[in-house]
């Protein structure tokens, strides 16, 4: 049994699989507890788990954090929505039309290495301090990667699948709508799941400069007033939100693409 667990690519019982995941969380909290309750680290730098819990409960009772969550979520969701709105069709065209790939791949490949955070001063100059600027940061942080990943998904469609469609009488339009789109949809949903995760990491960057609300702003305020417990609560909330969205995407994937599973 033990050797089976460490054999590459071997399936293991589901209970052990889930147990291993829970064990990681337990170990994480365990080490944290050891460091804080054991007095190994100054509580000013690392507050104990119960302090974090109480802070979180108080913040939720207080209610202010809810509006921070709301505003942050809407920034991430909208910024990402626009990135996907442009990036998905563009990526699909780049993956299927060589002319589009030739035109856009080099410039996107160039811009995507420019740090989104360094553009914040420029965005502020160009579009001011409002919501549009926050969304622009998130858009900039995700759009280019997303587009290239969608391009790869579309490019990887089996060429025979497209050729057989021509022999069945498909027009170019029909090839796009009835073959390329459904064939790349699972890969696109997976790409959106991964890049949405990245969008959250750009949120804090966007809210550190020139923001007066949101989870990133809350974290920055806590930092100024030396309240590490608030920083950690903010970080954990962002982590949880990201994970919930990730699970929702996975559920969407499972229900939408049941044709990928043998049991149907």
């Amino acid at each position, binding site marked *: 049994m033990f050797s089976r667990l460490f054999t590459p690519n071997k399936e293991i019982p589901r209970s052990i699989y889930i147990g291993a995941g829970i064990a990681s969380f337990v170990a994480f909290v365990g080490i944290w507890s050891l460091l804080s309750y054991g007095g190994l680290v100054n509580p000013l730098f690392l507050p104990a788990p119960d302090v974090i819990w109480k802070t979180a409960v108080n913040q939720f009772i207080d209610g202010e954090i809810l509006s921070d969550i709301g505003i942050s979520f809407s920034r991430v969701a909208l910024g990402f929505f626009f990135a996907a709105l442009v990036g998905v069709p563009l990526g699909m065209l780049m993956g299927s039309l060589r002319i589009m790939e030739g035109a856009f791949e080099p410039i996107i490949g160039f811009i995507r290495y420019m740090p989104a955070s360094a553009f914040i001063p420029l965005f502020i100059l160009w579009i001011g301090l409002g919501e549009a600027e926050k969304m622009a940061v998130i858009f900039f942080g995700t759009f280019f990667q997303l587009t290239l990943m969608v391009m790869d998904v579309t490019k990887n469609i089996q060429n025979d699948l497209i050729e*057989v469609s021509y*022999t*069945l*009488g498909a027009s170019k339009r*029909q090839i796009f709508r*009835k*073959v390329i789109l*459904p064939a790349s949809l699972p890969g696109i949903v997976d790409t959106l799941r991964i890049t949405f995760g990245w969008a959250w990491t750009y949120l804090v960057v966007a809210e550190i400069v020139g923001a007066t609300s949101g989870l990133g702003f809350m974290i920055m305020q806590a930092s100024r007033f030396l309240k590490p417990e608030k920083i950690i609560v903010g970080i954990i909330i962002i982590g949880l939100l990201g994970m919930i969205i990730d699970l929702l995407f996975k559920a969407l994937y499972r229900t939408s693409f049941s*044709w990928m599973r043998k049991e149907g």
Partner: protein
Amino acid sequence: MDTAKLIIDQVGKVFPTKSGEMVALDQTSFSVNDGEFVTILGPSGCGKSTILRIVAGLEQPSSGRVLLDGKEVKEPGPDRGMVFQSYTLYPWLSVEDNISFGLELKGVPKKQRLETAKHYLNLIGLKGFEKHYPVQLSGGMKQRVAIARALANDPKILLMDEPFGALDAQTRTIMQEILLKVWEESRKTILFITHDVDEAIFLGDSIYVMTARPGRLKKNIKVPLDRPREFSIKQSLEFLDLKNELLGLIREETLKVI
């Protein structure tokens, strides 16, 4: 005199490569009669797939032309159905939707589409699999559905590019029998590519043997076996004689390129 359905008229194909031009297919001419089952037999890399792809319109000939019912082939179209060696079913569509895909493209109403799908499902012996998805099918089933999908479009000719090449030997022989049954019922003109001598004889009315690169027609042999053909015919003297002759021809060609 039979009427020629498909005419391959001095078709040649040259591919540009880094080290100059590579002749994949020398100028080749032959014709296929209406309702005829023609197999093209050749060693790997002899350009036999190139012929088929040119007939399908997926590739342009460097010289010559292809005529189907007297009209020159320029691009792919539903009058030439094709079955590939790789599995090309649409994984997101059920078996019945796969079979009726070509009809859907044409805008045939759903009710009529599903009736046609049902008819061809019965023909290929997959009744009851309407709602299954490709991932749930074996390789042999997938290729049968691919054949049904091509036939449901009612093409003038069926082009088959080593369709059973990826299947195991047992499945392969059964697929050949199923294909013959389907052909006897539909009487479609079929152009079938293979490198398997048994398959070429068992299926074809006529066999074109190709040379190794550059591909050229080496010999045309009429198969002297009666129809309908049963599995047991593979043990007959005529079959074995023809098999020996063809094995010799193919061996010569394979030795040239090995």
